[in-house]
C-alpha cells in the first residue's frame, strides 16, 4: 500500500484510539520503549531487548502488527500538530501542507516502531518470532518496513538455516 494511503487509514484509526484507549500493552517494558524511541541507539538498546528473550515476543509482535501504542501515537500526533503551527512561519516548513508534514513524521514514527520490532524479533528468533514476522509480511506495510523484515528473516536464516523456524 502506498504510504499516503496508509497514513489516511492511520488517521482514521487514530481518532478511535484517542477517543477510546490509552492503555499500554500488558508486557510493557521500558527497555522495549527505549529501543523503539532511540535515534542512534548506541547504548545497547537492542541487546537489552534481546536479553528479554521469548517473553517479549508477544509485545514485539503487537508492535510489528499495530505500531506504537495509541497513547504514544496520540502524543506524537498532537506534538507534531503544534510544532507545525509554531514553525509554519518558516517558508521551508510552510512549503509542505500541514497534514502532509504531520503524516510524514507520523508514518516515520510508526515505521520506526515496526522496523525495530522486526529487528528485535529477528534477533530473538524462535517459532513465535518467525510467525510474527511472516504474518507481518502479509500485511500492508511500507516498502521500508517490508524491506527490513525481509532483511531480518534472510539474514537470520542465511546464517542459521538449521533453525527450525527457517526450514
Amino acid at each position, binding site marked *: 500500500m502506498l504510504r499516503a494511503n496508509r497514513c489516511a487509514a492511520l488517521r482514521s484509526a487514530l481518532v478511535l484510539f484517542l477517543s477510546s484507549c490509552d492503555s499500554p500493552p500488558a508486557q510493557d517494558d521500558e527497555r522495549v520503549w527505549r529501543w523503539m524511541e532511540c*535515534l542512534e541507539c548506541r547504548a545497547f538498546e537492542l541487546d537489552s531487548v534481546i536479553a528479554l528473550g521469548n517473553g517479549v515476543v508477544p509485545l514485539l509482535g503487537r508492535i510489528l502488527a499495530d505500531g506504537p501504542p495509541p497513547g504514544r501515537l496520540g502524543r506524537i500526533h498532537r506534538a507534531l500538530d503544534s510544532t507545525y503551527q*509554531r*514553525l509554519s512561519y*518558516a517558508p521551508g516548513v510552510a512549503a509542505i501542507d500541514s497534514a502532509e*508534514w504531520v503524516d510524514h513524521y507520523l508514518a516515520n514514527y510508526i515505521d520506526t516502531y515496526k522496523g525495530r520490532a522486526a529487528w528485535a524479533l529477528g534477533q530473538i528468533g524462535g517459532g513465535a518470532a518467525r510467525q510474527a514476522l511472516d504474518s507481518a509480511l502479509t500485511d500492508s506495510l511500507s516498502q*521500508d518496513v*517490508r*524491506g527490513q523484515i525481509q532483511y531480518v528473516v534472510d539474514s537470520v536464516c542465511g546464517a542459521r538455516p538449521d533453525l527450525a523456524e527457517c526450514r
Partner: protein
Amino acid sequence: MATLGFHRTPGPALPSLNVTPRPARLAEVWYSNEPAGYVPILTSGFGNKSADRWMLGTPEGTVQAVVPTLGAPGVPVGSVRVVYPAGWKPVAAATSPKYRQILGGGIRNVYLSFWFRVSPSWKAGPQGVDNILTLRTKPGTPELRLAFMREQGAELVPSLRLGGLHRPYDGVAAPELAPNSAPGTTVRRGRWQHWELLLRGNHPGHADGKLTWWLNGLPTGDQAGLEFWGPGGPWIRDVAWDLTAPVAGTPILQRIVLDEMYLSAPATSGDRIVVMNDFESGVQSQAPAGTTILVDAFTGTGASPCANDLVVAGGAILPNFLDAGANCPPDEIAVFSTDNAATIDGGAGGGQGAAQSPAQGIWHDMSGERRVEDSRGPRPVEAVLWIVKEEDSRKRKVELVARGEVEQANAMFNENRAGIRLEVVDVEHVWDSSPTSVAARAAIGCQSVNGSTACTCLPTLPASGFFRAGKLNAYYVPQVFDEPASPRIVGGLNCRYDHSNTLLDPNIVYMSVAMSSPTALAHEVGHGLGLEHTADGSGEWYQGKVPADNVMRDDKWLVSASLLLGQAFRVNVETRSLLRRNGMQSGPHRSCECELWAACTRANFILESELGQQCPPVTRAWP
C-alpha cells in the same frame, strides 16, 4: 574617554525568528511625534508589574502597582497608582517611590511617552515642584528631569530641568525649561495627561543637542543648543519614575496615577552589550531583554577587584561560569551577545579572545559605562543537502522535508542562542535514473537490502565526488544503518568517527528519510558541533538536569527540541566542533567533552566537577 573599538563584520540576514524581539508598541496611534526609524526599547502598560520588570524602590504612601480599572485612555487594564493619605508623613528619611528600568546604556537619542493623572486636590511637593520622570546617565549623577511640574499659584506648569549637562546652558548648570512653544500650558488635575518628549543628543564637542516635547499631543516646548554629554558619554542609561512626595502632613488625600510608559530609540543593527561600573544590586531585575550587561559590582567601599562579577542577559544573571573562584574571574569571560553566540573574551591584558569577542577591550578601561554593538548575525554553516532516494516521485517531497528540517534546526539554534544557522547552499539529487546513480550508491555507502536501501558512514566518502569539503553534507537516504557488521537501523548518524573510532568528518550526516524525527537533523548537527548525548537507553546522564526535550537526548523520538546554555557554549568553542574544522572559528576554544566517540557514553562522560574553569557544566540552563 576613549571610544571603544570592536569587531564589526557585516553579518548575513538574521533568521526570521529572533530570540529577543523588541517590545511591541502599545498603541501605535499614540506616538504620532515619534520619529521614523525609532524602535521600542521599553514598553510598560503596567498590566503586570513583574512582567514589566520595573523595580520598586523605596515606596512612600501606598503604592498600588496594578489598578485594573484606572488605565489611561484606551488601555483596559493596569496602571501604577501612588496614594498619599490625608496627613501623610514619611516613615523614614525623605524618599520617594522609584520605578526604574535600565535601558542598556549608551543611548543618545530617545523618544518617550507616558500618561499620568494627579488627583483634583493635588498640591505640589516641598519645593513647589513635583518630579515625575527622570533619565539618568549613571547612579549619583544629576538627572535629566524630563517631566516635572512647578506649582505657580493654582496652576501646575509642565517643565523640564536638565541636571548633569556636560556644558552649562546659557551659563546655567541645571536650567529649568518652561513651555516655550505654547506658553501658558498647564497640567489639568483630575484628567489624564499624555506627555511626549524627544531628546536628540549632541554630537561630541558640539552644543547641538535638542529637546522637543508635547503635552496631550500639542507642541509645548522646544529647546536647542544643548550639550548633554562629552565625547565619551556617559549617555542615557536608565529611566525612572522618581516621584516627589507631597509635603508631609498635607491634610488632604492625594494620588498620582501613571501608565503606559514607552521609550524608543533609533534602530541599531545589533544587540547591545553594556559594561556597568559600581552598580548597585538589583540589576538583574532591570536589564531589558536583548541586552547583555557585564557588571562590575560595587562592594560598598569601591568597585570589586574583579573586572566582571556578573553577566546579565535578558533580565537574568548568568554567573561568570569561567570564574576561577573567590568571585574573581580569570582573565576571561564568556559572553552571549548579539549573534546569540558564546564568545570568550580575553579580558584585560589582551588575552587570546580579544580579537574574537564583540566586547573586546571593554574592560581594559573600567572607568565608565560602555556600550558596544555587535552587528554580527549567527554564523552561517554552509550545508549541502544530498537527496538520495530511489523513487523519483518522492524526491521533491524529500527535499521539502529536508529543507523543513533545516529550518526547524535553525529555529532551535536561534531560540537557544547557539550562534549558528544552517544555510543551504546546494541541493543535489543523486539517486535517479542518471548514469551516476551506481557511482553515487557506492560512494555514499548505500547498499540495496531486499528492495530497500540502507546507507552508512564510509571512510572513502570525503574523497569522492559526492562530498563538499568545508561544508555540512547531509545525506537524506532511505534508511541508515549503523555498523554494517552488526547493523542497527537508526534515525540518523553523524560520521565524525568511523566504526573503528578513527576520526572521519563531523561534516557528514546521514538522515533516514523513513525513520527520522523532525529534530534528528539538529541532533546530528549537534554532534558535528561537538555535543554528545545527554541521555540514552541507559537513562539520563546528568542526575535529572536534562530537560525532556533536550536535542541531544537519544532516548526519545523528539518532535521539538531545545539546547542548554552549557551546550550553546560548546557549540561555539568546542575544539572538535565543525566550526573550527571548517575555519569558521579560530579564537579561543575548549575541550569540554570526552575525546573519543566510543568513550562518550554515560559511564565515561566528563564529570561536571572535572571541568574546572574551562567549561560551564553541560547542564547549565538558561536563566
